[in-house]
């Protein structure tokens, strides 16, 4: 395809538009002034220290990791076999069931959070943690079904059938033959779902309580009353984590698999 000057200029402007604001955050995170300003006067790492030492942020970071990990794992436990069943067997109403599993994507996140809050926390009186876990499970499941589902559909099942003829039980064949061959799909789905859960705001907003707050929520609360470079520092740290994650994915799967 031919490149044209006009397109190239627009494309460059778009990429600048996407990245300059993030660069701005990086720069302001080193400023010495109490409020965020640009250009910065002085250079300090104090804000990073403050962020890493903050009890609130660290505990909410830990919680985000725990919930993200648990919810995604649960989604994998439920979703991988389900994706397998839908791909492998001719299930009546397959499309309906698949759409049902993907339905959380159609419901606005804020509505999911709200209805879960009303039902789980208020009416059932369950602890917020369980509510958070279920909420994040719900938003993670579609990624598993979609990504692992596509891997399952592309697999050549004759290797499974050969295993059966050699004396393998169905369960064993599933674990030893099928799973290893869709492992890249599972890993990609896990990464996508985990990142999505970690970054989620609407569900976490509703389902938070004293001592049970996710990182984005605690960030938002902090920002309500404070406008200092602590937020910039945390942002930079999170961006570094994202870059590390992308490296990890590129080395194992190639980023193309989740794009």
């Amino acid at each position, binding site marked *: *395809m031919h490149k044209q000057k006009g397109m190239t200029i627009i494309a460059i402007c778009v990429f600048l538009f996407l990245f300059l604001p993030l660069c701005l*955050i990086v720069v302001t995170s080193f400023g010495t002034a109490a409020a965020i300003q640009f250009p910065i006067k002085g250079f300090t790492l104090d804000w990073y220290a403050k962020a890493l030492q903050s009890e609130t942020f660290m505990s909410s970071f830990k919680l985000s990791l725990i919930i993200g990990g648990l919810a995604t794992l649960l989604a994998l436990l439920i979703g991988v076999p389900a994706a397998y069943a839908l791909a492998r067997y001719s299930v009546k109403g397959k499309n309906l069931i698949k759409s049902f599993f993907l*339905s959380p994507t159609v419901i606005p996140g*804020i509505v999911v959070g709200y209805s879960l809050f009303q039902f789980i926390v208020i009416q059932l009186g369950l602890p917020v943690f369980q509510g958070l876990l*279920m909420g994040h499970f719900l938003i993670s499941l579609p990624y598993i079904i979609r990504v692992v589902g596509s891997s399952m559909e592309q697999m050549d099942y004759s290797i499974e059938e050969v295993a059966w003829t050699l004396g393998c039980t169905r369960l064993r064949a599933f674990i030893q033959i099928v799973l290893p061959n869709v492992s890249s799909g599972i890993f990609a789905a896990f990464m996508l779902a985990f*990142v999505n859960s970690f970054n989620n705001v609407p569900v976490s907003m509703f389902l938070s309580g004293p001592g049970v707050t996710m990182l984005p929520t605690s960030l938002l609360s902090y920002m309500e009353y404070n406008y200092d470079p602590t937020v910039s520092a945390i942002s930079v740290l999170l961006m570094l984590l994202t870059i590390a994650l992308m490296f990890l994915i590129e080395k194992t799967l190639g980023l193309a698999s989740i794009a």
Partner: protein
Amino acid sequence: MNKNVPYFIVAPGIILLLFFLMLPLINSIWPTLFAGQAVMFGNYLDFFKDSYNLSIFWRTIRISGIVTLITILLGIPTAYFIAGVNKKWRGILMALTLFPLLTNSVIRSFAWINILGKSGVVNTLLIKLGIIHQPLNLLYTEFAIIVGSVYLFLPTMIMTLVGVMETIEGETLEAAETLGASPFSAFCKIVLPLSVPGTIVGSILVFTGTLTAYTTPQLLGGNQKMMMSTFLYQKATTLGDWNSASVLAFIMIVVTLIVMKLLNSIAKRVDRRELNRA
């Protein structure tokens, strides 16, 4: 036993979804629609009769539409550019496009507070240049929400469009050029029409995304310029008005579904022209 195995496997997922998604939704929305046996739309009629509510509703739809249009206008040239570069650069550019998508929306909206705020980059620059003397109120405006939402969803639109444009064969464009079309003309007559389905898919994602996003309207619109999502949150938590919140929730679901159905049917009509390889 054999025939029913798949049903047992999908059962746990279905049960969990029913219990933790469907049930809560019905629990919240049912009371707004039904009083005993009778269906009542009173709650909804009242909602739309209130001019404040209506203004929030239209603002949400309007902003979503504007954001979608802007992402299309910016996304198409960028995606075309990315689809046309060699493999190595395409990987790099796609990674660069993917990075913002993996970054938290709080961070991405926060970036614009830094730029649009009273002591932000824009105001500081304009005051320094002497163009204005008082900082402009750029935050907590619809403009801010639009910019922030475009920032949020542009990568999504770009990635969707690149996927489509990569399937357009280079030889088709070369054929157009041998027939006398200039490179720009070939772009308009060949690439654009063939990108329509991808544009529609991207539009669904961007429109519904902007419609239902919470972080960006909250940080950049605040209480002055509310969208349906921030309004819902306010009703539910600050005001404790469960009924209004549920009404909003249902409206948001319905609007999302209508938009998806509408755009999907347009996509199907366009696809009738068959966009396979010739």
